């Protein structure tokens, strides 16, 4: 049953790897149903067709890292009724937010042969630092089921079922054995929002924190426990400094273990 007037969907890209947008193409079975229920108006990864705004729903991937992008996001916001950010770059600044802990000129000089061509901001920042965001979908990359759920909830005018509790809840529901307790493996699950689809602990690995901080992350207690178990300060700092390094609770915890 397709809708009479289909909402217009746009997908926008900022500093990112495209992985999150590709999750939409990865939706396989659901993709056809999504396509039948929305007009995909702007989605460079999937189609060249462009329909001019305004848009009913904009999905924004990537972080703000250049002066141009800091302007562009405002234009997109003005043309979007609803704006949802997707992925760790858009919601926390992404892996490129590691620059926030260093001097940007040092990085530019290491990486580029002609640093003078580079026009970039000193920090990589999430979209919500710049414009009002209606909903944030976490993950590096996002989970395609969660993406479909958010679009589904939007279409059916209901609240999305996207929990904000810890990854541990998913471990226990699935019956996965806790790697912290049964192997002593360092795991960020207790401070990380669930939603990845329970990928790492069932394979015997600790959670890397791809979905960012959970609703009330007690990073200090977890980090303290890691330190008691003979983990070095550098190792604890690095655990919190990955895809969601720029998310405030993870940023503060990593800074607390910085050796000065």
């Amino acid at each position, binding site marked *: 049953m397709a809708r009479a007037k289909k909402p217009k969907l746009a997908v926008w890209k900022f500093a990112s790897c495209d992985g999150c947008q590709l999750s939409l193409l990865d939706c396989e079975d659901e993709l056809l149903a999504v396509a039948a229920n929305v007009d995909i108006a702007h989605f460079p990864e999937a189609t060249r067709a462009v329909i001019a705004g305004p848009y009913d729903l904009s999905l924004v991937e990537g972080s703000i890292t250049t002066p141009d992008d800091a302007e562009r996001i405002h234009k997109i916001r003005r043309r979007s009724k609803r704006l949802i950010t997707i992925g760790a770059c858009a919601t926390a600044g992404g892996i490129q937010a590691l620059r926030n802990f260093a001097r940007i000129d040092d990085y530019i000089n290491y990486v580029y042969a002609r640093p003078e061509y580079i026009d970039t901001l000193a920090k990589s920042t999430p979209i919500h630092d710049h414009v009002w965001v209606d909903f944030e979908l976490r993950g590096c990359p996002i989970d395609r089921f969660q993406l479909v759920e958010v679009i589904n909830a939007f279409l059916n005018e209901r609240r999305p079922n996207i929990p904000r509790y810890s990854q541990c*809840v998913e471990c*226990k529901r699935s019956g996965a*054995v806790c790697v*912290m*307790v049964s192997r002593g493996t360092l795991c960020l*699950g207790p401070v990380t929002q669930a939603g990845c689809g329970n990928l790492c602990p069932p394979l015997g690995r600790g959670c890397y924190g791809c979905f960012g901080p959970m*609703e009330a992350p007690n990073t200090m207690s977890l980090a303290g426990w890691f330190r008691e178990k003979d983990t070095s300060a550098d190792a604890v700092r690095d655990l919190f400094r990955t895809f969601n390094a720029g998310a405030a609770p993870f940023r503060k915890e990593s800074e607390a273990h910085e050796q000065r």
Partner: protein
Amino acid sequence: MKPAGSTDPLPAIIDKGGLQVLIDALIGGGFTVIAPRLTDGVIALDTITSVDHLPAGATDEQEAGYYRVHDGGGGRLFDYATTPQGWKRYLYPPEERLWQAKREGAGFAIVEERAPVPRYAFLGVRACDLRAIGILDAVFDHGRSAEPRYVARRDQALIIGVNCTRAGSTCFCTSMGTGPAVGTGADLVLTEFGDDAAPALLVEARSPAGRKVFARLGGRQAAAEDIEAADAAVAKAATMVTRHMATDAAAILKRNLEHREWAKVAQRCLGCANCTLVCPTCFCGSVEDTTDLTGATAARWRRWDSCFTSDFSYIHGGSIRRSGASRYRQWMTHKLSHWWQQFGSSGCVGCGRCITWCPVGIDITEQVRRIKDSEGGPH
């Protein structure tokens, strides 16, 4: 050992082969047999079809936030304490669709869930876990508010208890009055005793359903010495229990709702919810409505939830329990104190899982003791 009731046959002695006869009889009778099994480096509950699936020779080491399995090398099949999760996940699954609704014109029709529930035989139910099932019964099999699919699973289930002959270091059943000897509610009860390499199993039948299976077991009738040896093995387990819960925990907590210890434990507590999810009596769930993309079908799901999540106490305007301290207090005071008013018992059976599986090793017995000790002297 409980004296055999007048209708109960005298206990029998079987060996490993006899246990296979039991498993075969159960499978032949249409049961899915669930028992402890070595999986992913832990002794967890799983489906078994052979006595060889039981973790022969394995023992476990449990501490606050710590669990390891060791190979003791012997032939004992039940020489360990509690499994990481209890039988709750079979009787009350983590996720269950309750019903669906299909759009029909301007209205909708309800589609009930009618899938038959599995018929389980639980093999190796510990005393604390049997008591936990009794507590879940009080919660779910409760007149008008009964949970029909729980009741259906429970009614069909056959329970083969096992008396503990080794206690783990996080166990505190003795102070909760729940173990190590299996109490009421089991159909059959096993006690493993004797020679480490080839131990014997003493089998008691304790219900009509249990007697029916018992009649097919074979083995030999237990002699007085067997019963004595089995009793001694269980008595030894009781002496191995090192953790204790304050007997007046309910009253202590009730008069200390504003104690400073709540804020202190919240500094350590991660709010991760592991303690509630591994607890064999924690029964909280949330219902979630889903739709298909077109809005033609909706479904209502029930999922395990926890008082440690903020959505759990969300009402119009926000969560009631905003601080970690208030969430921890809710959990512990419900479990140990106002469960009495609600269901007439403690909500804790002393299995120790919340201690072992807390990633930062928070110990419920220790938390009560800290509050209790603070009452003794000046603050």
